[in-house]
């Protein structure tokens, strides 16, 4: 312990530095409620108009196990959960051992001295502060002998270190634990106050966040899974079906709980095949429905999705990706379902694939997916992933009054109806739902067999070619309508980093980092993956190297899944690929170093 510390303590309080942002990693076991600490910090940041992003790993074992929650709070724009932690809070020896290397040199490790024995060799590298969190928690709540609540005690310690807004945190704790047995709120507050009031021995410095720029709009704080589910509701979807699987389950649980309030329902089915089939049946009933899953369940749904392509039935499929193939790495981050989303299934089956880039984007993408499905009578995939699904972000509260839409079916009788009209100018099918009278007395059949314009089977090769063209042409129409992405940074330079889905934030940070080091790096995020937006080739043309960064394997031919599509589409040899499958989101430095090494 340095003299500096002693002086500070003699004076009664450590020195305070003002900081723009901080990365706090909390490591323990999932049953200790470490996600709750992270959740409180994230929501506090949201209420303080600070930007916040979290990163969480969930153990795949049932009884809990090692788990982390990382929060990055910033007074400016926060793009990723942070490469290195400024502060590491660890509850056990294993948390210490596994995560100390994630701490930046000179960072603070705050550890539970009841359980953790620090590594002597590291005492000089990191600033070590031990607090007997477990026993002090027991003391704070009156000595019942159990340390349940040590997460809240630790939250108190962090609140002291970062000079957090105590009244706001107290309110959050009351909201979270209120409504239950009043003694629970009291215990939680006792723990919090115990931690907050504790004189931390050895704390040389405490921090204060810069005042965030006031944006005016109130922020909401939620996870990507929540944002997707609420987006689906806002879009007017009132029927869904699914089967549990991590990390998708949370979406279906939320929809199951919430939809009845809106007059809708969500079915837990016997398997994913039933789920997609039921959702398609409901779409056929007149109102686009939703289904979803993760890897293995998406594989099961592919035959039925092919039917929806053939019958041109609107449908939204949410795929919260995880590590594959097979059961794979169920609780890890991966972006390896791009191929199955774009091409999964037999035959030529064009469909739409969108990949949201952030929690906020999940909300709006869900609405967009519903509207594309309706307008183009097509299945639409939303490719989320484990990282977006579980992380928490703050974003401006959407204008729900103007966003929420009513997509009730229209049963107005029609004179005549040809669902698969080949002469329709936009090539788009429009179904009339059962219950609609067709005055001509000629009724359509929705079918998976190749069909004529009325939906009746045909064996004609000519008709098959025409219908294949129809199903593809309508997606050309969509491609002409979707926005062309904007380059992040300069529109010309040495390296263009291309990414999709949740990699957007880390890639943009890598651009900032690269530019600060004098590299001519820019970024491009592709949200509309199938069909691709127009004009990408012109965006690529300003750069010597176009490097696609994605979290999947380089495959047999050395290119990741999006890179392969882009190379096939543009035949541009400048398109290169940086891939990885370590189960973790991108680190900013990792992207930059690996991409630049390809250009040397």
């Amino acid at each position, binding site marked *: 312990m340095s003299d500096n510390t002693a002086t500070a303590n003699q004076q009664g309080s450590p020195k305070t530095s003002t900081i723009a942002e901080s990365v706090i990693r909390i490591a323990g076991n999932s049953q200790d409620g470490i996600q709750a600490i992270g959740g409180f910090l994230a929501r506090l940041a949201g209420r303080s108009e600070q930007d916040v992003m979290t990163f969480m790993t969930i153990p795949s074992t049932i009884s809990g196990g090692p788990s982390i929650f990382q929060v990055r709070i910033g007074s400016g724009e926060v793009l990723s959960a942070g490469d290195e932690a400024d502060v590491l809070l660890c509850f056990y020896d294993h948390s210490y051992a596994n995560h100390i290397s994630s701490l930046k040199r000179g960072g603070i490790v705050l550890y539970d001295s009841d359980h953790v024995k620090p590594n002597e060799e590291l005492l000089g590298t990191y600033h070590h502060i031990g607090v007997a969190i477990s026993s002090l928690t027991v003391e704070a709540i009156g000595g019942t002998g159990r340390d349940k609540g040590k997460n809240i005690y630790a939250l108190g310690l962090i609140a002291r270190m970062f000079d957090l807004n105590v009244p706001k945190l107290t309110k959050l704790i009351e909201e979270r634990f209120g409504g239950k047995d009043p003694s629970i709120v009291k215990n939680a507050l006792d723990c919090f106050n115990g931690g907050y009031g504790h004189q931390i021995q050895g704390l040389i410095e405490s921090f204060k966040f810069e005042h965030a720029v006031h944006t005016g709009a109130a922020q909401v704080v939620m996870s990507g899974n929540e944002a997707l589910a609420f987006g689906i509701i*806002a879009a007017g979807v009132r029927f869904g079906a699914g089967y549990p699987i991590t990390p998708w389950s949370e979406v279906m649980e939320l929809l199951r709980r919430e939809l009845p309030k809106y007059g809708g329902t969500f079915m837990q089915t016997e398997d994913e095949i039933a789920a997609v089939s039921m959702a398609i049946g409901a779409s056929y*009933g007149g109102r686009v429905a939703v289904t979803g899953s993760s890897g293995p369940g998406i594989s099961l749904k592919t035959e039925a999705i092919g039917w929806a392509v053939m019958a041109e039935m609107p449908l939204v499929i949410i795929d919260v990706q995880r590590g594959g193939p097979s059961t794979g790495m169920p609780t890890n981050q991966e972006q390896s379902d791009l191929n199955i989303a774009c091409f999964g299934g037999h035959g030529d089956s064009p469909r739409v694939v969108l990949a949201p880039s952030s929690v906020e984007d999940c909300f709006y993408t869900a609405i967009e997916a519903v509207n594309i499905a309706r307008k183009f009578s097509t299945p639409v995939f939303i490719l989320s992933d484990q990282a977006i699904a579980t992380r928490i972000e703050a974003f401006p509260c959407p204008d729900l009054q103007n966003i929420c839409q009513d997509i009730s079916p229209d049963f107005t009788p029609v004179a005549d109806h040809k669902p698969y009209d080949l002469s329709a100018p936009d090539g788009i099918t429009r179904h009339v739902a059962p219950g609609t009278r067709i005055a001509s007395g000629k009724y359509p059949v929705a079918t998976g067999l190749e069909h004529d314009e009325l939906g009746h089977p045909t064996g004609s090769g000519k008709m098959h070619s025409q219908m294949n063209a129809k199903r593809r042409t309508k997606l050309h129409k969509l491609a002409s309508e979707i926005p062309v992405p904007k380059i992040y940074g300069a529109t010309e330079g040495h390296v263009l980093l291309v990414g999709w889905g949740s990699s957007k934030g880390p890639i943009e940070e890598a651009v900032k980092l690269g530019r600060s080091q004098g590299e001519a790096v820019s970024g491009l995020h592709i949200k509309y993956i199938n069909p691709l937006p127009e004009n990408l080739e012109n965006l690529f043309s300003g750069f010597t190297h176009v490097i696609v960064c994605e979290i999947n394997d380089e495959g047999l031919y050395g290119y990741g899944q999006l890179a392969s599509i882009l190379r096939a589409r543009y035949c541009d040899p400048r398109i290169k690929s940086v891939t990885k499958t370590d189960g973790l989101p991108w680190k900013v430095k990792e992207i930059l170093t690996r991409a630049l090494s390809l250009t040397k």
Partner: protein
Amino acid sequence: MSTIAIPNENLTRTGVAATLPVPAPLADADRKPLTKKETAADHPTWCPGCGDFSVLALYYKLIEKRKMLHENICTVAGIGCSSRFPYFVQAHGAHFIHGRALAFASGVSLSRPDLHVFVFGGDGDAFSIGGNHFTHTARKNIKMTYVVMDNFVYGLTKKQTSPTSPIGFKSKTDVGGSTDRPVNPMKQAICAGATFVGRSTATNVNHLLGLMDAAMSHDGFSFIEVLSECVEFFPGAFDAAIPRKGGTFPEISADHDVTDEYAAYKLCDEPWPGMFGTFYKVNRPTKNANEAKLITDARAKLAGVPDWQILQKNFDRMK
């Protein structure tokens, strides 16, 4: 102008989306019951003499008898010879994928309480590839009528063993005769939790029409097994059940208690050709009604609150 009765007036209109718009019954006094001419669509592609023709003809009759209107008829099927059904009916219909018709139909049934969905299919579609859905649709008691045209063989794919093929049946996949114990559809349905379970033959048209009519009136998952001969790949399979071919048509006696599950199981074990009629019929809340109740309860406190405000409340809690 007087309002004509809604087509399925004697059906209970329960279902989710009870609060969502469904088409208003058309006020049209002049519309007469549909004739076969108006209900028939594509000419069936079945082999001449196939038992399925008679099931189709009876469906037309049922539509006429129940005064169903074109727009409210919804016919769903999977894949198989029998599953071509929807193309032959001039009405809204869907020809889905092999084995999954029940799941598709559940989506229609649960989101459209104003429709009574009919599902037609074969034994392979129902008990092999679709076995899981059969079990769970029955268990959940999702309101619809399911008619399986059981020919004890895979017709469309040209004579492979089906889950109902009798032991010893010689097919392309069991040239020496099938050895697997066949499914007993009646037992399967009762055990799974179907609330209306009946059996008939394609040849006894009056009996089958009566059963289809009763099934349609049932508020729940109603299931009928129809022995329907595949003249191409299993000719003569059901002669033992056709009196004019020297067989018998043993009907379930009037004093059978259709709510007695054990008595029903006993009937399932009668020797070939087995029994015909309603084996089992009970009233149990449908999935449709259960979901409708969830909605009613959830909305009890929300009367008149627009959707966006309900969502806003959630968002306010996340601020």
